[in-house]
């Protein structure tokens, strides 16, 4: 039964992270997600210190506020101070992360919150903390991830066309009156929420891995956005399953095995695609150019 809950939790994280990740890689903002995932720390610490509770509601609130604040600060430094995107991300998140750590250290005596429990979750511990829900005993973290995943799906479904045009050509979208910045901040709120809840259950490296790797792998296989989302989710879920099997067989860390697995799928797809392209190119030049529009 524990295995079931671990895999369940992993799949929820996999699906929501890979869906958001698909848009992140298209917008070239994966580093921003990485930054947000660290910069939520001060928000969580403040929410905890002010409310005195570790209830999901306050965590969610604190995380969203600091996540959006990060996105805002990065945008602001870029636009107003003319700092390059990658540099402004580096400046912003290291600073916020430091503030978070200082807050936690300063008040560590009075709290049971430390950076470990925010940043280094481990899937294996998920089944330890169960709560009663609708007559079943379900791990709290699995339960929390259900509405988060639901929110990710609802968001993508509601804003799909807008996300498409905004990701492809943000300046055209703005020109035509689309409120791209609002969409951007909504999206970043969701990224913050998802990363915080996923962190707690599966740890930092796995969250970043699941945000980026399955989407990049899927990107090599399709030229359609809807299929990109589907394939990314499939690769993410397959990573969870494969990772679980590997961890079981090798008696090793589960989160790391899942991250490793997603990397292996990437390498596999990349290798196969290169092989396929080589074949096609050889064929092209042995049979002669057929269509003038074929680009090599």
């Amino acid at each position, binding site marked *: 039964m524990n295995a079931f809950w671990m895999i369940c939790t992993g799949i929820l994280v996999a699906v929501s992270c890979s869906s958001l990740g698909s848009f992140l890689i*298209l917008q070239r903002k994966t580093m921003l997600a990485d930054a947000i995932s660290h910069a939520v720390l001060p928000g969580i610490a403040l929410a905890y210190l002010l409310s005195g509770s570790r209830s999901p509601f306050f965590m969610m609130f604190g995380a969203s506020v600091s996540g959006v604040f990060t996105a805002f600060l990065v945008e602001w430094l870029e636009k107003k101070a*003319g700092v390059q995107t990658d540099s402004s991300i580096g400046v912003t998140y290291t600073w916020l992360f430091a503030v978070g750590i200082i807050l936690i250290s300063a008040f560590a005596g009075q709290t049971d919150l430390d950076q470990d429990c925010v940043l280094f979750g481990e899937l294996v511990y998920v089944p330890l903390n169960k709560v009663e829900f609708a007559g079943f005993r379900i791990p709290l973290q699995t339960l929390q991830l259900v509405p988060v995943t639901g929110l990710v799906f609802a968001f993508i479904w*509601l*804003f799909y*066309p*807008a996300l*498409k*045009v905004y*990701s*492809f*050509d943000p*300046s*055209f*979208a*703005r*020109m*035509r*009156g*689309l*409120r791209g910045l*609002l*969409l951007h901040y909504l999206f970043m709120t969701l990224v913050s929420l998802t990363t915080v809840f996923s962190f707690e259950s599966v740890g930092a490296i796995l969250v970043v891995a699941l945000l980026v790797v399955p989407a990049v792998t899927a*990107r090599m296989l*399709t*030229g*359609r*956005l809807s*299929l*990109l989302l589907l394939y990314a989710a499939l690769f993410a879920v397959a990573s969870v399953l494969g990772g679980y099997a590997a961890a079981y067989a090798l008696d090793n860390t589960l989160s790391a095995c899942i991250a490793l697995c997603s990397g292996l799928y990437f390498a596999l797809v990349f290798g196969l695609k290169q092989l396929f392209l080589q074949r096609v190119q050889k064929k092209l030049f042995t049979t002669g150019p057929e269509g003038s*529009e074929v*680009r090599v």
Partner: protein
Amino acid sequence: MNAIEVQQLHVSYQDKPVLWNIHFQVPAGVNYAIIGPNGAGKTTLLKALLGEVKPALGAVRFFGHPLDEVRSRVSYVPQRQLVDWDFPVNVLDVVLMGRYASRGLLARIHRSDRERAMEALASLGMVDLASRQISKLSGGQQQRVFIARALAADADLYIMDEPFAGVDLQTEKIIVEILHRLKKEGKTTLTVHHDLTTVNEYFDGVIMINGRLVACGPVAETFRHDNLSETFGGKLPILESVIQQSHKNPVQK
């Protein structure tokens, strides 16, 4: 009625001034070109007109209104190098963006949008490429997709940034046809243009800038030697031949 009215427009990036005191008017129902040397601020001018760059000073009005009130009447063709042509969408997807981008974040795509998008593609001779992935397009085809997207928006004013840059002859002909057709329908176009030899043939009016406004008006009166040399600086012999050529045989090219 003027399609565009610009007054005292000043734009700077950080502490570097790019445009000084630009002022001009583009009447409705004409094809206008913006010309100027590299670094003259042509793209910046478009960005300032469209609110993408905030001017330090000055006002822009479209059909007598600020842009935010008439956004749906203004469409835009950006430089095609600015987007990722590997993006996982097909040609029709991109053209559809012209339909729904102005409808807000919750926009849906209707059947009428698809029909209108296909019409726009037809006018650019691209119907058979509708389901092609955009990474498999040539440069000229990319440009036509962008123009189709702008047309699908059914605007009254079309602002285009270098649509003729690096396109094949067929695409150039098609774009010129589109310019003529839009004018016939009473629409206005404003195009950043780089090929001086075709200004006379393709456009009714010309705006000449080089950091500041040199001249603006109908081609016959404005596209003259003195204005050109003021816009482009020293290279007089070349400019001389350009003007002679374009005025002597305006159609032949």
